[in-house]
């Protein structure tokens, strides 16, 4: 297959979505910069998404986060066209999916893009095995091959012996595992996850997150992951986009978001997160080959680095790269300062 022009698996360009009786007429106003509040009060239209430009790389987890009403669920539903945009473009592998007719769109949904839902949305009248095999049944696969795939996934998600149970008999965590297996059973390239773990208990949420990351190591899907929880975003995302009132505030790697918030809103978001467990030494070290003290790998998180320094009663360490060469130095008081005071980190 020839290389596509863009590196991105999914490219969203100038996307606008306006809900209301006459979205087309309001589009010009939105493009002219009218805000959400004014649009609603004076024109009776809801400006859900206002000019989204976003590239999502293949084989990685891209988190879209924002508070409720920020447009994140609306955004993700454009990628499989459950919602049609008012204006703008969406490309997958360089192909404009807005130009897809019925058959091509059906094929996209059946084979290439799958979805996991916040409230699971399992089929209550189908048992676990039948739920997992739903996408395959829609594709028209034989009963035997459906059963085989379902059995494989049931094992994979640790629900052995539950194949014949109905969703109503399962706990929330189990239901969402079925939801995840249902989405992955069709072997899609892209997985859309709309707040998949928000309805679960915190403990179960952690388990599910681990399970997702474990599966991702093996499967390498392009995952668009929606959440309102920054800890979750930082834990799963290799890139994070922060959405507010239908517009993108910032897109970047987790460390970028925390160290260099684009504005006060993003900074407010990141204020309460645990920096010690997120930031790595490389992000705050002083560069130079002349570090002293115990060796600390550059990708160590601050918490572990602080522990290592404290254990050897050192006040500073020598930062080394993968090959063991010194690339900088890190002071314990600097680490503590960054963990304790968000504003310090940026300097």
């Amino acid at each position, binding site marked *: 297959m020839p290389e596509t022009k863009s590196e991105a698996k999914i490219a969203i360009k100038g996307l606008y979505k306006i809900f209301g009786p006459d979205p087309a007429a309001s589009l010009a106003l939105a493009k002219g910069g009218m805000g959400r509040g004014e649009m609603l009060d004076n024109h009776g239209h809801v400006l859900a998404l206002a000019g989204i430009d976003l590239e999502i790389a293949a084989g990685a987890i891209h988190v879209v986060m924002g508070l409720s009403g920020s447009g994140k669920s609306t955004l993700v539903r454009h990628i499989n066209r459950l919602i049609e945009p008012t204006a703008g473009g969406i490309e997958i592998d360089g192909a404009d999916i807005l130009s897809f007719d019925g058959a091509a769109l*059906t094929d996209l949904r059946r084979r290439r893009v799958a979805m996991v839902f916040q409230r699971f949305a399992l*089929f*209550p009248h189908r048992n676990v095995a039948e739920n997992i095999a739903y996408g395959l049944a829609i594709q028209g696969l034989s009963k035997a091959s459906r059963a085989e795939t379902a059995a494989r996934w049931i094992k994979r998600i640790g629900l052995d012996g539950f194949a014949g149970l109905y969703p109503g008999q399962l706990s929330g965590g189990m239901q969402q595992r079925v939801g995840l297996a249902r989405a992955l059973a069709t072997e899609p390239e892209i997985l859309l996850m709309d707040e998949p773990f928000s309805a679960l208990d915190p403990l179960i949420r952690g388990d599910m997150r681990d399970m997702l990351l474990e599966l991702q190591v093996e499967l390498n899907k392009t995952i668009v992951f929606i959440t309102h929880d920054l800890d979750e975003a930082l834990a799963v995302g290799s890139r994070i986009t922060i959405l507010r009132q239908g517009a993108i505030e910032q897109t970047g790697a987790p460390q970028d978001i925390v160290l260099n918030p684009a504005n006060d809103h993003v900074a407010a978001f990141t204020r309460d997160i645990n920096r010690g467990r997120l930031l790595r030494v490389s992000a705050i070290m002083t560069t130079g080959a002349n570090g002293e003290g115990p060796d600390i790998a550059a990708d160590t998180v601050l918490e572990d680095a602080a522990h290592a320094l404290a254990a050897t009663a050192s006040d500073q360490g020598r930062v080394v790269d993968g090959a063991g060469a010194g690339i900088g130095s890190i002071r314990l008081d600097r680490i503590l300062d960054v963990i304790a005071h968000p504003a310090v980190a940026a300097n």
Partner: protein
Amino acid sequence: MPEWLVEFPKMDRDALRSLSKAIDEGYRGFSRAYGQGIEDFFDPLLFALVWFEKLLLGAPWLLILVILGTIAWIAVRSLKLTAGVLIAFLAIGYFGMWDDTMRTLAIICVCTLIAIAIGIPVGIAMAGSDRTQALVTPVLDVMQTLPIFVYLIPVVMLLGLGKVPGVIAVVIYAIPPVIRLTNLGLRLVDKDVLEAADAFGASSRQRLLGVQLPLALPNIMAGVNQTIMMALSMVVIASMIGVKGLGQPVLRAVTNQYFALGLFAGGAVVALAIVFDRTSQGYGKRLQKFREL
């Protein structure tokens, strides 16, 4: 006080009379012109009805009992219900109502099948479009509130006395619940689940047959149940236009003041109703076993 305030401004008598006359004559003309064609159209229905009635009347009563018991067992899987069905029919036969009950059974079965065959698709169409719903709802309202005799008149004028006009009258009266509840059931299906079906690329057919109808089934079954009950109550009234069955002894009892006969026939209608009700409800519940877990 001026006269126009006291007297309601109505059409004058001659105009009213000539309007009624015009409507009557117009309909009579329509009936003369198309009556035969419409009768021919319903011939297969009459044929099926007569065939089914003969089958039920001709078969040995023991065989009928076995078949009814088997149906009840397959539908509900309950010994208690099956025994109840058998006892009900034995009592009906013992009180001399067997033949009339078989006739009623035949016409109820045919009417219910017709009502389902028409009602469910109409309900689906209503659920799929708000405009269709807005159009059909007032028609259903009229069908349910118009006094039965008012639409018995034109049906009899068109088709004469007999089974077919009876079936038409019964279906008109009994079909609204199945239509309304199919519509309601489909509209109540969880939006999240439908979105999931869409997200997996289900065609509208796969969505309807695989997700919407199965999840709407409790409501649809409640509609079918109500339709059967209404058909049963209508079948008694339809005896006035020549439908044979349990309605006739009731009619005879009313006109001749035979209290006991009325009681027996009425009891048979009640027994039939209970049997139909419990069996269809039990079947509906068994189809939904995932809900009880």
